[in-house]
């Protein structure tokens, strides 16, 4: 077990190193960092001095080492566009994105599991067919169109919910600002979190349904029925448990995608999070912000994958036994 965790940590470290390398090359060789930092009236001599001072004349490997050390300390340089340290910008905006992703993940998992169980266990019920048809439409609708539609109905026409921003936020200790403690904050998060969660909900729903249909055909379920077990025990005690491994894999990956897809949702709802920051960085070629965001998202993905791998051991006794031998 410990060996396996060590191996996975090593693998994750390699992935992070590759991402850091890409991000470093992006930072140092895409465009000239110096000309992006200085004004037009700077002389060539000043530029050379700055280059020397920033260590851009050092060998590449030394620069990469310094980049890693700085990144580990949370130092990602100065944003070209906003002229402020990148880590500050990201720290300001991270709470907004994480709260949005958190609420969306709860919606996606809650509705996805409930819908998946219902459609998997009651295949021919009319409501199952209704859910499945709706989910096909849900997959075909691009996220931003769902967002626009919700804004038009609930903000423009009905005027029930705000169409942009986070509402009132409360500053907590440690620089975390939360919108989840005020009524206007909750009102503001409803539309964006539904928009973000919809696609993931349909995916989780479909994977649970298809896994359940698969498990329900197996002999041990037939045997459980033959033993006269209550159908509730069979459904939730035996069938659901055996669908968990693929479901956890997909759910884990989908939470990772929520962070990436929050870029779109944040743009539609003008949500002041990291995704909106990243889009502006792409539009203005603000390389330090881009490379910091890349590293951060990769870190989220690696951590989620690691948690997913560890969860396998919790839900699947076969794996535990295999590792022991």
């Amino acid at each position, binding site marked *: 077990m410990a060996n396996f965790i060590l191996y996975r940590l090593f693998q994750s470290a390699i992935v992070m190193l590759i991402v850091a390398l890409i991000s470093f090359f992006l930072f140092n060789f*895409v465009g000239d960092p110096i000309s992006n930092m200085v004004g037009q009236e700077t002389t060539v001599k000043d530029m050379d001095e700055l280059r020397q001072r920033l260590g851009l004349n050092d060998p590449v490997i030394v620069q990469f080492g310094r980049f890693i050390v700085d990144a580990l300390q949370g130092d990602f340089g100065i944003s070209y566009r906003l002229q402020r340290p990148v880590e500050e910008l990201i720290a300001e905006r991270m709470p907004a994105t994480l709260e949005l992703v958190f609420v969306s993940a709860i919606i996606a998992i809650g509705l996805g599991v409930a819908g998946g169980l219902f459609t998997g266990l009651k295949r021919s019920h009319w409501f199952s067919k209704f859910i499945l048809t709706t989910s*096909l439409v849900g997959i*075909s609708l*691009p996220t*931003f169109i769902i967002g*626009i539609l919700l804004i*038009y109905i609930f903000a423009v026409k009905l005027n029930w919910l705000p169409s942009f921003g986070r509402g009132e936020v409360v500053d907590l200790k440690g620089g975390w600002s939360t919108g989840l403690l005020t009524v206007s904050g909750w009102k503001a998060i409803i539309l964006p979190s539904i928009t973000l969660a919809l696609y993931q909900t349909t995916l989780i729903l479909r994977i649970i349904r298809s896994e359940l249909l698969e498990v329900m055909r197996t002999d041990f379920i037939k045997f459980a029925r033959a033993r006269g077990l209550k159908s509730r025990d069979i459904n939730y005690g035996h069938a659901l448990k055996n669908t968990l491994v693929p479901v956890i894999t997909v759910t884990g990956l989908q939470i990772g995608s929520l962070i990436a897809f929050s870029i*779109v949702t944040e*743009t539609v709802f003008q949500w002041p999070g990291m995704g909106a920051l990243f889009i502006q960085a*792409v539009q203005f070629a603000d390389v330090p912000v881009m490379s910091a965001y890349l590293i951060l998202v990769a870190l989220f993905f690696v951590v989620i994958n690691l948690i997913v791998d560890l969860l396998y051991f919790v839900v699947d006794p076969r794996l535990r036994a295999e590792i022991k031998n």
Partner: protein
Amino acid sequence: MKDVSISKWWAGVSDHDVTYSFLHSPVTIVATVATILMFAAAFGASFLTIYTPFDPGSLELREAFMPPAWEQGGNSEHLLGTDGQGRDILAAIMYGTQVSLVVGILSVLLSVSIGIPLGIIAGYYGGWVDTAIMRFADIQLTIPPILIALMIDGITRTTLSSEVHEIVAIPVLIISIGVASWPQYARITRSGAMVERRKDYIAAAKLIQTPTAAIMVRHVLPNVIGPTLIVATIGVAVAIIIEATLSFLGVGIPSTTPSLGTLIRIGNSFLFSGEWWITFFPAFTLVILVLSVNLIGDWLRDTFNPKLR
């Protein structure tokens, strides 16, 4: 004689399982008709409409914000109304669909032409070549394609000046989406190639010293390409969505040659002031286009390869 051979051919076609399955799936028929109509409208735009919405010389500010013809204040000259610069929405959608389709199809062609060779090489050789290619594909698969496309677009934006970028925006977007989505084609092709390489005809080809490259191209490729191409149909829908999303975010197709996504972005800012048609019709077209292509793809998959379901 000719008539006989045509009627024979027709008898063959109409008796075929595929034709039967097609004719008994009303949803697929509707989706196919819708797709054909949209293709015709998109690529025949210059014949079908008198408006040239993206020619800067043709702006008619007096006709700006005209609602659709059936609404009050509408005009039958502009069936779906006009936008903030007096451009005809219907014509803009036709040209926009053309851009969306071109980007969608070309980027899938690019993904396929990266994914299929790599998949065949991985599956045919196996061993470390396979491990290297598929590990890389696995890592890329965990990152959503839209993020990779954004990254590639961001890098080109940084290296090129904005004037140059405007000119090469469409090719850059095709490359971004194409490179971002190759792994799934590599996976499918690889699993096919792994099965094929153990078969006798490959052993026979090796025995008569056919060069490995020729075995892969002439013998393995035709046997594994089918399932990949079916998945590619759905891939076109996905690529159209990615393109529309990027354009909506303002990092895709510039507004000088707008795609459907760009049109939706332009119209989105008028939604609050009540000019709903500027964004609604492009969005509706996009949804119908994606839905139709998805439905055709689903039907192809179910008909030709039920195992993939």
